[in-house]
């Protein structure tokens, strides 16, 4: 179960994620992400503070969105990763691919 909410602040789209990013919920998240990019969002900040699980299917979504945004000089940035989520990013090498901060405020 994954809850996704978005809010625009200045040029950033703040994406607040809550719950599990697994093989099933990742599909829906990818669809939403592609819609944000389609409507012109270029700077995504994904707040992971309430995410307690992510699998490779979830990681893949962020890779897909980052590649799309890279092509238009945009970016996906992350914040609020819990230690066990951070470990998944480290082991997969994904922590090298994204800016990761403690809180959303770090990006303002």
């Amino acid at each position, binding site marked *: 179960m994954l809850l996704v909410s978005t809010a625009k602040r200045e040029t950033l789209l703040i994406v607040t994620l809550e719950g*599990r990013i*697994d*093989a*099933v919920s990742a599909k829906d998240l990818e669809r939403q992400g592609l819609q944000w990019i389609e409507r012109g969002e270029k700077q995504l900040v994904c707040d992971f503070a309430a995410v*307690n*699980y992510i*699998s*490779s*299917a979830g*990681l*893949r979504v962020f*890779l897909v969105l*980052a*590649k799309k945004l*890279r092509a238009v000089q945009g970016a996906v940035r992350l914040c609020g990763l819990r*230690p*066990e989520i951070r*470990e*998944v990013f480290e*082991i*997969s*090498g994904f922590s*090298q*691919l994204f800016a990761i901060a403690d809180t959303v405020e770090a990006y303002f």
Partner: protein
Amino acid sequence: MNAPKESAAPRRRPTVYRLELPAKLEATEALADFVDACAQAQGWDGGVAMKIGLVLEELAVNAIAYGFADGREGHLRIVLEAEPEAVDIAIEDDGDPFDPFSIDAPDVAEALESRPVGGLGVHFVRSFMDAWSYARRDGHNRISLSKRLTAARDA
């Protein structure tokens, strides 16, 4: 007297948890509740539960994608044997032969542009488990995993 005393406590029998899933991607959502129930009963910390849940999801998703690529009906059976110091897991399915450990390990240092998305699931298995094996027998794939639970490793 040389007979061994009771210093070697009788080995406790593991608690066994079972789950059967249809071989459909949507069905993998049931893994979360299964692992939560095991974690609560066994008192695993959140990190251990997440790692076991992650490994189960990755292997189940692979088994469904490769073993049942034609979309036919099938089943996955998971048997988890929990002891205070270790967890042994068997995942069995009646899909086409597929050995997930034959997949090459990904280069986790690769740049964004060239980064492929495959192979990560098995990389997590190798990172989070202490032993893993694959066997094909009587038309079934069987993956065996074990994870030690020690304060030093999982604190």
